């Protein structure tokens, strides 16, 4: 039974952590998205949506079926 998490989950998460450091919008105080959201805030709001999509994709593609099976095994030996 393989218990590990697929390497793409680790790489994707690290990539998102890197994308969180949006130095490109750091000093931009002028661009307003839809005239209401400063771009620095809009980027991170979008980042939250991307994070949700990322974990949604992980749930579909890299769901750890082995963990579910392990939990269902009938042993209770603390």
């Amino acid at each position, binding site marked *: 039974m*393989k218990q590990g998490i697929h390497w793409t989950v680790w790489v994707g998460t690290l990539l998102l952590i890197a994308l969180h450091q*949006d130095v490109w919008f750091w000093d931009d*105080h002028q661009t307003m998205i839809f005239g209401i959201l400063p771009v620095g805030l809009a980027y991170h709001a979008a980042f939250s949506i991307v994070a*949700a999509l990322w974990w949604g994709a992980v*749930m579909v593609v890299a769901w750890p079926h082995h963990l*579910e099976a392990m939990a269902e095994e009938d042993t209770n030996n*603390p």
Partner: protein
Amino acid sequence: MTPLIVLSCYLALLLGLGILSSRSFRGTSKDYFVASHSIGPFLLLMSVFGTTMTAFALVGSTGKAFERGIGVYGLMASISGLIHAAVFFLIGMRLWVFGKKYGYVTQIQYFRARFESSRIGYLLFPILVLLVIPYLLIGIIGAGKTLLPVTAGAFPAWFPNPATPQWSGGIPVWLTGLVICGVVLTYVFMGGSRGAAWANTFQTLVFMVMGIVAFVLIAKNLGGLQNASKVTIKVTEEGQVVQPYRWDNAQKQLVENNPPKVIGKLVFEGEKPVSGTYSPDPLLSRTVTEVELNAKNPKTGEITSFRREYGIPAWMFATYLFIPLSVGMFPHLFQHWLTAKSARAFKLTVIAHPLCILVVWVPCVLIGIWATGILPPLDPSKVSAVLGQVVKSIIESPVLSGFLTAGVLAAIMSSLDSQFLCLGTMFTNDIVLHRKAKGAYSDKQIIFIARIFIVVIVALTYLVSLVAPQNVFDLAVWCFSGFGALFPLIFAALYWKRATKAGAYACIFAALASWFYYFKMSGYGKEMVLGPGIMPVAVCFVISSLALVIVSLLTSPPSENTLRKFFPDR
């Protein structure tokens, strides 16, 4: 009086929910501690989200945005959405599997088994308890401070409050703390973890909805979103900090200040701003802008100046990501994970958590930056009042004030209940029952012991809250830092077969020593960064990780039996 009636109705509703949840109680200790692993996806999402979001989610986020600007969302919220979800999936779900399979109800039970050491539990227990207690105090004192101004004038004869005459007649902090503790104790006492999960779900929905309602009404009264976005303070070419608009109480609308009202100035060192550069819209970017603001004392009329750093230093932004890792070591969150019905119940929590953060935090951050153009400058000790003050001056609805305060109390209580329950669970299972043979106590006796412990913990915490320093809020980030410094322990326990008992001890001692070193250096709990803005938790994390890895590699690996139990794929 109206807000008080709304709040009383809310608390009565919560008690009713607690009583209702106790009807589903199955009478077993497993049901009391982990709801017999019966909580489905939606309740799990709401209870986990409610537990991780404290009063800071509504009040603190608005106040921090008022202090530093939009960068607060990236600093604290968007990274938490990613990291929390990662921890729920990579740590929480795995711990749920071991908990369900081997019958653990506390973190310490897992660590004792994984590191083949009973003593590690006695070492971890006081550390975890001491890190949770300030977190509890923040909730109890925070609730009292929230209610005092909202109820000002309600009972002038009973609570004259000469120390703060502007809030004379308001419900005093000690009484709110007593009521809050009583309500939380009742539903946790009766319903255990199921009661906490039900109450958390209700309260999380309340504070999410109230945040949105406040945002919509404030934006509407400011003349719409586009108009509202113009009101934030500016820095002129001459280096003056100005408010271009003001809120006219008589006309109930925004009015342009002509000329803009000067409220402070850039701080210069020679001809250059002391922060190296500055932003003309200091709240709309993360550029660090150091200013000196003028505040008027409402009692004496005296003008005083204080410094403020708008924006976020780059190193602080980069190293803050170690703070949300703390959720991996929260003992109360461990217990919530254990309530899940199945591994699949985690899916919704993992996916929707970043979206829930978005829904709560973006409106609060926007209200915070708009407030800079409406309210006078406030020193850091008063920024937690920003949301309440904006609601009071812009919306002027006692009913909404009551509902919004209920939302803040909901956010507070949805964390308090889990923390009280988890401390009672830990005392019962990790200390009282640990050395006893299985079957030494009946289920009924175990529940009785847990309930007694919960009552004692609530009473003690309440008493401590009466004498604790009122600036206990500064301790929050230190609590998170402590848990964050211990994160390598849980991560290595789950993912690194070579992590040994000695390595675990080294990790705990290194985390403790490095954390205490910086805690002392900060003056026991004040805000502190290292060098260019590095969060101390980042250094503690590196030190505890190194200690764990080096000592583990120098000592014998865990036994075959333990490895088979926790790493069945080898």
